[in-house]
């Protein structure tokens, strides 16, 4: 005979099971809009692992910043997974659900927890990650093919290392993958380098890198392509409060026509400011 406690446990279990199923159902990403378009809005944003400066989880502010800009494709850096510090929240899944977008995060955390991510209103039809040579924190480049109407676009997201050796090696490796991809292509991320290649203020290493000029030989910097001076104050992206460096970039292949590029200076969700570019499809 079933005891009162067993009945109680079964009822509780049923509630918990139904609650969990309901939770999974309501957070499933619905099918995004896949209408053909001639214009793409791109965004790159280093989200500081989803923290506020004092350690609170800050995903709602980040979501609102992205939602207000209404981008079609977003590259996210410092979107690490499996961090006990951010309470093991799957920030990319959460953002994708909230923003009604497809997502890809790389690499699997069994490789490393430091990764970059991609959100897209258009279907991601293939994706891959490439671990980059690192002496300091491990870095990765992700690559995805996105179906935009009848066109396919190659998208790359990267977050380069801080040291001269790491970032120059990683930039060269990343460009090998970018060069090998089919056009049209987009490369965006936090490159930790200034357009001039000079050391960041406060750096002990006086060496000047050529990352910006090397990439510019293959792709167009949307900021300058939109008519802005290479190193103007309104292009600075770090730190978010009183920025004095431009280290976050969106590059596109020459078959795209750049309409505009802005830095969202009002964004408060991270220690970086997001960059948004609008481009015409080839």
């Amino acid at each position, binding site marked *: 005979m079933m005891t009162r406690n067993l009945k109680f*446990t079964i009822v509780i279990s049923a509630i918990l099971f139904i609650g969990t199923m309901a939770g999974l159902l309501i957070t499933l990403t619905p099918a995004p809009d896949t209408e053909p378009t001639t214009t793409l809005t791109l965004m790159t944003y280093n989200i500081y692992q989803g923290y506020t400066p004092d350690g609170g989880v800050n995903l709602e502010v980040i979501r609102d910043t992205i939602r207000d800009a209404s981008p079609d494709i977003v590259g996210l850096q410092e979107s690490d997974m499996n961090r006990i*510090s951010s309470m*093991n929240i*799957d920030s990319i899944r959460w953002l994708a659900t909230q923003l009604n977008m497809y997502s890809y995060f790389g690499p699997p955390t069994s490789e490393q927890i430091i990764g970059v991510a991609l959100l897209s209103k258009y279907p991601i039809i293939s994706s891959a990650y490439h671990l980059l040579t690192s002496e300091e924190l491990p870095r990765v480049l992700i690559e995805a093919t996105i179906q935009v109407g009848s066109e396919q676009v190659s998208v790359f997201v990267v977050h380069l290392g801080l040291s001269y050796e790491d970032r120059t090696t990683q930039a060269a490796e990343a460009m090998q993958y970018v060069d090998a991809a089919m056009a049209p292509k987009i490369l965006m991320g936090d490159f930790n380098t200034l357009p001039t290649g000079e050391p960041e203020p406060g750096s002990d290493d006086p060496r000047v890198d050529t990352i910006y000029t090397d990439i510019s030989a293959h792709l167009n910097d949307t900021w300058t392509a939109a008519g802005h001076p290479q190193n103007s104050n309104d292009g600075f992206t770090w730190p978010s409060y009183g920025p004095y460096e431009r280290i976050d970039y969106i590059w596109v292949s020459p078959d795209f026509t750049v309409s505009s590029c802005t830095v969202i200076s009002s964004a408060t969700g991270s220690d970086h400011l997001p960059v948004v570019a609008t481009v015409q499809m080839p």
Partner: protein
Amino acid sequence: MSEKMIQGLRQDDGPWLLLHILLPMFMTLFFFESLRVFIGLIYFVNLGAMTIGVSVLYIFLLLSPIVVLFIKKIGAYRIVIFSAVGIVIFRLLMALLSWNMSLMLITSGIATMLYGIFVASIIITPLQNTPERLPGRTGSISISFALALAMDIMFRAIGGTWDITIGSYSIAIVIPLTIITFIIIWLIGPVCGAVIQNSSSTPKAKKSRLVRMFMGAGFGGGLFMIYTLLGFPNVVARWTNTSYEFNTVSVVIALLLYAILVQIPKANNLVFRREIILVLNLLLIVAVMDIIYIHSVIVSVFTGIAVFAMMADLSVLWGIVVSRGGDIVDSGLFHFFGMFLFMFLILFFALSFVAGMILPALEGMIPYLLMLATFLVFIVSVGVSVSGFVREVEE
């Protein structure tokens, strides 16, 4: 609450339900929520900023079970009630003070600390005249642990992996939960007071306290596995590149199945047979190896199996504390050592995240830490089951 209702609750299995299921269930739920915030904030203000500050010392609050050795004269039952009231108050404060991270760190730390005292005491608080068809108190408290974990996963599933009791809606959820818990605590006095058994009144032959204390390593290893991997289907999904949804369903079914099966006498006897414990633990090893290294197509199923085995092991491990005349000192030492080990495993786990910046030698250590924790659970659980150290607990 009318006297008639209290009379009704006093009968049959009411006291058992209140003291050994509902109260530890809500306490464990609050513990999971507090621990996540507590460890997360300590990590952020230290390793997140690549500096080690004085706030890292808060981590020693995890060692709170040792406190019961100094307050044992109060009696295990009173410690249970006081610590439970404290946990509820500080969990509520956590929600109310969530705008300030320093206050969150303190309140979550105290709630976590109080749980260490609570769990060391509740295990040693038996009830008289509990019907034989009900599981023993270690089995019961492992049921409450499973239900708490399932509830925590439900809250996280609703929030898209972000616990809704911590985010923007936390006050709306935490206030009702704390009210329910206060009612449970308030009922425990009139309902359970007359049948609380003084655990120290029946001294039996004792095994060495030191041996029992070191067996707490199994508890620490198990808690580490739940906190870093098995209790988070999304972490397993990202680690193995598998479906978060399937992993969640698998884990929740395992937890609920455990909670139900352990209450069915025949199933209970089967689950806790030494042969079955051995098989479950072998499956646990295989499952964790699959999750960490192999990533087979049935990794979601293995995750559920691992969680089921871990719940059974928890009951076996708590059995170490209460069998053969174990008292509150044994419980305090057992949980103290378990939390000590948990603290060190978490420290190395966190350091290996930023190994490239601090200790390069720790790079890639996470799989080894997870396997080490699993082997600790395996060795202690299987060891005490096969050796017959844990016997049926008379209540």
